[in-house]
């Protein structure tokens, strides 16, 4: 922030949602307002943001959601107690901290009234935090920290619009014409959201994350799935079949794909030399028909998973697989057997996927992370924008 009017502006906290289709639930209502009014005002507050971005907000009655809304009194379990009428009206958590929004139930929440505290305006502000906005020092901005009283002609300030669009971009065009890069017909029946299971996930040498399923693949972006997908694997990786078992990119920049007894090596999307080769030839000590593979961020070694066992492959040592392997997957505390995919993601975390769910692995504690909502979480929500 500057200290003169010219440089006043919004502030981004630094995290945002990777998916665009967000869900919310109101798990604790205020004592002094009819539920229907609360539902309406909260929905209007979310619509403020969905109207100027590609984001959508779907209300759920229960179950895992992205943003939980609660009306609470005093100390309410997050270490940031409310202070009774006036003072602090509400607070919310940035996406990296879960995105939830809490409102002080000691306030007199009102609708379309100069009396009390206007629920819609405060909620719209708090959801700005839930989406990744910090406070703005533009006094007229919604994201300014001070409540400015009921405004019957409420409008977002340009500063708020600039802020949220810096994070999520503009609303999607609603034209029904397929985008020119739309994949041809048969791709349409390829579906990631029906059960959100994948054959494998891997990062390319350029740090792009791809999901493979059957004959098709999707490119994952920061937020969700890139538009214009799915596409056919064979069109982008010439010579590579569908229904791949596992894939990873090693620090030599090569990407290795595994299927049945064979493996392929690519530089980018170009096959290196004459592949496929036998896994027993190129990865001595590794079995055929593996479930998943990844390069673990903890030591840069290659890990293969099959059934209830895992192998560690180190190309720099002889033999590359010590005879103490295989070991039980249960060593990776909380990770299930019979995995679909394993991924060392660009955020530094290790993720395991199985039948539409995923687990975030904490390399420090060497166990699946303890978080709220707990793992496993639905991969469709959190990864594929379903």
């Amino acid at each position, binding site marked *: *922030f500057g*200290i003169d009017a010219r440089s*006043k502006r919004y*502030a981004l*906290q*630094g995290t945002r949602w990777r998916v665009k289709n967000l869900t919310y639930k109101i798990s604790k209502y205020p004592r002094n307002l009819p539920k229907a009014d609360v539902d309406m005002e909260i929905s209007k507050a979310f619509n403020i943001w969905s109207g100027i971005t590609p984001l959508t907000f779907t209300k759920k009655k229960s179950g895992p959601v992205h943003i939980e809304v609660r009306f609470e009194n005093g100390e309410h379990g997050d270490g*940031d107690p*409310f202070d009774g009428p*006036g*003072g*602090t*009206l*509400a*607070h*919310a958590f*940035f996406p990296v901290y879960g995105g939830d929004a809490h409102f002080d139930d000691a306030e007199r929440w009102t609708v379309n009234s100069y009396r009390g*505290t206007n629920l819609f305006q*405060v909620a719209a*502000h*708090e959801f700005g*935090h839930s989406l990744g906005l*910090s*406070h703005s*020092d533009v*006094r007229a901005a919604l994201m300014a*920290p*001070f*409540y400015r009283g009921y405004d019957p002609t409420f409008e977002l300030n340009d500063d708020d619009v600039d802020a949220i669009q810096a994070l999520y971009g503009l609303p999607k065009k609603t034209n029904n014409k397929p985008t020119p890069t739309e994949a041809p017909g048969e791709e349409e029946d390829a579906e990631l959201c029906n059960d959100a299971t994948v054959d494998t996930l891997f990062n390319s040498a350029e740090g792009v994350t791809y999901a493979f399923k059957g004959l098709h693949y999707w490119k994952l972006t920061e937020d969700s799935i890139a538009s214009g997908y799915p596409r056919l694997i064979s069109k982008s990786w010439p010579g590579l079949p569908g229904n791949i078992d596992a894939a990873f990119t090693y620090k030599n920049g090569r990407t290795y794909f595994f299927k049945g007894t064979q493996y392929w090596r690519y530089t980018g999307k170009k096959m290196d030399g004459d592949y496929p080769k036998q896994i027993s030839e190129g990865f001595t000590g590794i079995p055929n028909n593996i479930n998943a593979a990844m390069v673990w961020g903890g030591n840069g070694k290659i890990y293969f998973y099959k059934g209830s066992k895992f192998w560690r492959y180190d190309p720099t040592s002889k033999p590359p697989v010590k005879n103490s392997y295989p070991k039980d997957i249960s060593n990776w505390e909380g990770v299930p057997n019979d995995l679909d995919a394993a991924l060392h993601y660009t955020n530094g975390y290790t993720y395991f996927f199985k039948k539409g769910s995923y687990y975030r692995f904490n390399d420090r504690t060497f166990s699946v992370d303890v978080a709220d909502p707990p793992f496993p979480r639905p991969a469709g929500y959190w990864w594929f924008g379903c």
Partner: protein
Amino acid sequence: VPTLQDESVKAVMYLAQFGYLPAQMTNPNSGHLMSQDAMTDAIKEFQAFAGLNITGNLDKETVETMKLPRCGVKDKVG
């Protein structure tokens, strides 16, 4: 160190709650030592953010602004 008047104690807690002073200062009994300069700078930052005259003093306008209803999220996030 001069003992802080009640108004100043509230101001220190407010400035700490919203990110202008170290978080430990939200507890008035923390015994946390702080220089006058640090306090002045924190007041100036708050006054700049809130669009007030930047005096570095706990003047009337600043104290009144600190009483306004507001969002509980810090103004300055690490």
